């Protein structure tokens, strides 16, 4: 726990409640994210993961409580956030090139109706290089695979030179191999950028992140990578195979020859 002493908090969520109409989605959320953290938030669908991200981005207003980003209000502080949205089915016909998608990350902090400066172009090229997509920069976004598109969205988030990267289910609907590539990439990015990520894919998350939190209306986060039984009970009604976590284990049933050996 002493590792946090010399680190600056980048996100401070205090006593945040969020409700839609009469239904409470988030209850008394407290979470402090420190510089260079890599937090994976897991939890069931409908547990409020996406809602929490929306509150952090100012897409919805908490009913009570406060959120500070880099010590500023959400509307100002989100300038320091690079946001990677959940993979969504979109119009594949949409006429936009990879390079133009990445350029979106720069739009907020610059004057409109000006051409991009050379420096800005370099930022975009560099972001594309970081995610290994420089070669496809002139491709229409609809022609990319799910994993490639996810990398483009990460590049887009990186162009604003963010302190924090916020990811919503970055590996939903990509195959496990591609997920591995994306997580490796995030691990590399984490050397300079704080990452907060939500996912329901606990096994994948746990092998890459530094700390894990659980969210099911309430937040269970102890700043460690351990998922306690108490957290699990809070989150899943059904038992989850904690033993398999991080250990090699058998997935397939034994071969018949092995069965004979036993007999």
């Amino acid at each position, binding site marked *: 726990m002493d590792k946090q002493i010399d680190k600056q908090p980048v996100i401070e969520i205090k006593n945040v409640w969020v409700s839609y109409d009469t239904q409470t989605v988030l209850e008394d959320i407290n979470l402090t994210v420190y510089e260079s953290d890599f937090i994976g938030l897991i939890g069931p669908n409908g547990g409020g993961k996406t809602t929490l991200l929306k509150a952090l981005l100012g897409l919805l207003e908490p009913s009570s409580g406060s959120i500070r980003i880099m010590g500023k209000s959400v509307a100002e502080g989100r300038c320091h956030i690079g946001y990677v949205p959940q993979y969504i089915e979109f119009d594949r016909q949409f006429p936009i090139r990879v390079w133009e998608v990445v350029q979106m990350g720069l739009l*907020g902090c610059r004057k409109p109706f000006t051409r991009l400066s050379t420096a800005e172009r370099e930022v975009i090229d560099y972001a594309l290089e970081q995610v290994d997509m420089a070669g496809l920069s002139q491709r229409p976004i609809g022609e990319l695979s799910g994993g490639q598109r996810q990398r483009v969205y990460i590049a887009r988030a990186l162009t604003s030179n963010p302190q924090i990267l916020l990811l919503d289910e970055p590996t939903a609907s990509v195959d496990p191999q591609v997920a591995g590539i994306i997580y490796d990439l995030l691990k590399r990015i984490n050397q300079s950028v704080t990452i907060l990520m939500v996912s329901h894919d606990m096994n994948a998350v746990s092998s890459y992140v530094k700390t894990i939190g659980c969210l099911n209306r309430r937040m269970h986060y102890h700043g460690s990578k351990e998922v306690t039984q108490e957290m699990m009970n809070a989150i899943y009604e059904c038992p989850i195979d904690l033993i398999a976590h991080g250990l090699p284990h058998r997935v397939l049933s034994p071969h018949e020859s092995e069965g004979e050996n036993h007999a």
Partner: protein
Amino acid sequence: MLEIFQYGFMRNALAAGVLVSFACGIIGTYVVINRIVFLSGGIAHAAYGGIGLGYFLGINPIIGAIVFSLGASLGMGMVHRKTGERSDTIIGVMWAIGMAIGIIFLDMSPGYKADLMSYLFGSILAVPTSDLIIMLVLNVVILVLVALYYKELQAISFDETFAFVVNVPVNRLYLMLVCLVGLTVVMTMRIVGLIMVIALLTMPPAIAGLFVKDMKRMMGLSILLSILFTFVGLLLSYYLNLTSGATIILVAGVSYFISFMGKNQLRNRKKKTETNTVEA
């Protein structure tokens, strides 16, 4: 064949065709990629209220239409942004009310109203020079605003949430866009009539979108297609003695279906060659 260019009204018609094609190619591209075709239809019909008001007050109906279409654009645009799912119902209501207001105003206006049908079905052959000047001004406004906000408009069209998060003024830009749609609708109404405004706003970009995946090229190709459709339609209507607006639309419509089928054919052939290569 070229004798038709000797008539002043024909030259005006062709000029109007070119002017409207620029607006429709550019704004139509946004309409198609943002899927606001229905909203555009609503604006067109609400603008009819302005035509009625123009007659009632004895001013140029186009001015009334511009005022009404801008009002309708702002109203419907805000409804579209704020209410989410059921916005199409409210747009439908405004659509009908705008139209009804126009008819009531016309009932109350004294005098001769023969020109009225020209707003429903278009009157490209009777475009006065004053309307050409209004169109030219509107075109300049559209070109300048789209050039200034090209990146931002592309961003809000593609991923509105992300644009909002990086502090792009999404709401203001969106309302600006629907106002531009409103202005374009008023212009197009002169050519093909308000009932068929949507056709010229959607078909050229829809065809262009089949073949190019770059927004600037999509706009450029839409403009060229739109000019082609109005010219061919105009010539056909002249020689076959048909209603010009409807002929232009049918030319566009036939081209749309041909390109759609042609594109599918191309894709199938491509797939076949791909599978063949894999098998080999």
